[in-house]
């Protein structure tokens, strides 16, 4: 177990190195930050001095190792655009993204499980087929289009919900939350639906498939034969066995919710890390881009690692044999 753990962690760290290297090699193609930092009356001399000052005159490998060296000391540098520590900016933006991810994750989980059970139990029913078809409409439209349509309908035409931002936020111990104000809660609705719809469909389909598999199992048949009530079979036996893979997949999906938040945050001007990243690309704010990509990678690799370790702990035979159950 120990040897496996160490090996797995070493591999994860290596993965992070590679990710960083790829990311840094890309930065040069995004553009030149110096042009955005100086006004139209700047001279070539000004440009070169600033490039040198930022270390941009160095090859990207050198820039990368400088970044790693600093990052190892917990210092992600200063944002070109805002002139303050990137870590501070990320911490400031993180609550917005995490709250959005949490609400849409919960919505996806609750809605997905409920609809999944419904469609599994009434597999041949009309209602279930309608739900299945509707759910496909949700995944057949790009997220950004769903967001824009929701804004058009609920903000512009009906005027019920805010069109952008987080509304009024309250600061509780360094964490800004939108949960405590009416406008904050209202502001969460449209972005959460936009972000959660896709995951909800995924979970619904997963629950349905798992339920259908479980319902065919021998022990369920025995339970039926023993005359247990249908409801009790469905919920006490079938659902319980369904939930394990569902929770695993949801955990794995958490990362992709945060990543997909990029698009939702752009459409709704949601002040989270995703919007920060998109703005950083436009402005070629290399320190912010680097820190964001590293953060996301650490998160994904971490989730992967934990899941692997859990599987290993539960059943060594299953080691590394977790195939994606999403489809």
């Amino acid at each position, binding site marked *: 177990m120990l040897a496996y753990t160490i090996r797995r962690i070493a*591999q994860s760290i290596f993965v992070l190195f590679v990710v960083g290297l790829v990311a840094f090699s890309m930065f040069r*193609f*995004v553009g030149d930050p110096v042009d955005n930092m100086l006004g139209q009356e700047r001279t070539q001399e000004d440009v070169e001095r600033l490039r040198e000052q930022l270390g941009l005159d160095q090859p990207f490998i050198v820039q990368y190792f400088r970044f790693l060296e600093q990052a190892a000391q917990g210092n992600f540098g200063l944002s070109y655009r805002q002139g303050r520590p990137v870590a501070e900016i990320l911490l400031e933006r993180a609550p917005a993204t995490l709250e959005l991810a949490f609400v849409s994750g919960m919505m996806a989980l609750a809605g997905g499980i409920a609809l999944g059970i419904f469609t599994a139990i009434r597999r041949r029913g009309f209602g279930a087929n309608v739900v299945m078809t509707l759910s496909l*409409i949700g995944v*057949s439209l790009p997220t950004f*289009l769903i967001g824009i349509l929701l804004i058009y309908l609920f903000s512009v035409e009906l005027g019920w919900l805010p069109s952008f931002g987080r509304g009024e936020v309250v600061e509780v111990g360094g964490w800004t939350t939108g949960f405590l104000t009416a406008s904050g809660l209202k502001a969460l609705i449209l972005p959460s639906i936009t972000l959660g719809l896709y995951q909800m469909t995924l979970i619904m389909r997963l629950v349905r498939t798992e339920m*259908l598999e479980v319902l065919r199992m021998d022990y369920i048949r025995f339970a039926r034969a023993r005359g247990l009530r249908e409801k009790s079979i469905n919920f006490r036996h079938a659902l319980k066995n369904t939930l394990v893979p569902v929770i695993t997949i949801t955990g794995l999906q958490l990362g992709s919710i945060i990543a997909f938040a990029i698009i939702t945050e752009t459409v709704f001007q949601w002040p989270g890390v995703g919007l920060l990243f998109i703005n950083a690309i436009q402005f070629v704010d290399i320190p912010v881009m680097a820190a964001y990509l590293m953060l996301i990678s650490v998160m994904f690799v971490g989730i992967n690692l934990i899941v692997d370790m859990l599987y290993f702990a539960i059943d060594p035979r299953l080691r590394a044999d977790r195939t994606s159950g999403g489809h």
Partner: protein
Amino acid sequence: MTQTETPPTPAPVKAPSRLSRAWHSDLAWSFRRAPVAMISAFVVIVLVLSAVLAPLIAPHDPFNPATLNLMNGFTPPGEANAFTGDFFFLGTDDQGRDVFSTILYGMRISLFVGFAAVMLAMVLGVILGLLAGYLGGWTETIIMRVADVQLTFPAILVAMLIFGIAKGITPPEYRDQMAIWVLILAIGLSDWVQFARVVRGATLVEKSREYVQAAKLIGRSPLSIMLRHILPNVLNPVLVIATISLALAIIAEATLSFLGVGAPPTKPSLGTLIRIGQEFMFSGEWWILFFPAVTLLALALSINLLGDWLRDALNPKLR
């Protein structure tokens, strides 16, 4: 640009013919009993055909700038333009391009990108999955860790990274033509992991089966075991994933175009058309967004419905 819309059938692999026949007749039987699948298939066929035959069907050639008249811009559908008197069935966009023709040509690009990207992802994923599952050891570790790296970034980010690098190293004069190939590469490379994981999982299961052990004992080469014994058994899930991936790839192309890293506006795909159209959503020119969006929805939805049906139909346990 030819459309290769032949579905990935197991034809190149000599699967046991009895199995194959049963498989097909079963599928056909299930198809006949699923009106949704039939309608979806019909829609897909119509859309694909009209995309392939776009040069014959489309009243205008939106990719030829010399034929455009800017004064035709923003003509509403079914009305004659106030200045030129020209008539357009679905209206025109900001450049005076016929929306109907542009959708047909745009769909051609979207479908081509989608098919090619899925093909790339599938070939890559199946090969790597087979190798990882069958050989194990270091090969497996490397392939699956690369898959981890890939999963580390969400598909859309991977695609953006690849797009960024490819655009950076392409000379500017080729960028217009390159954009489509870069999209294919970006989407294809961001999507192979799913195939690899499923194939590897199935390979691990099949590997321990008696018949594979037997084949090994009689000295069959690993290549022949992989191709003749393992591959046919993983084709069903691969086919299902490929269908759903096709819809996902078309949507990914649209999303990339929305983020401004997709097909250029001079040769727009459906996604580019939607990006252009959404700028005019509030100003009253709804048709520039509406028709491409509906086309995209119809295309993706019917492919998804087909994939859905296929998944159920190919999973005997669920029948």
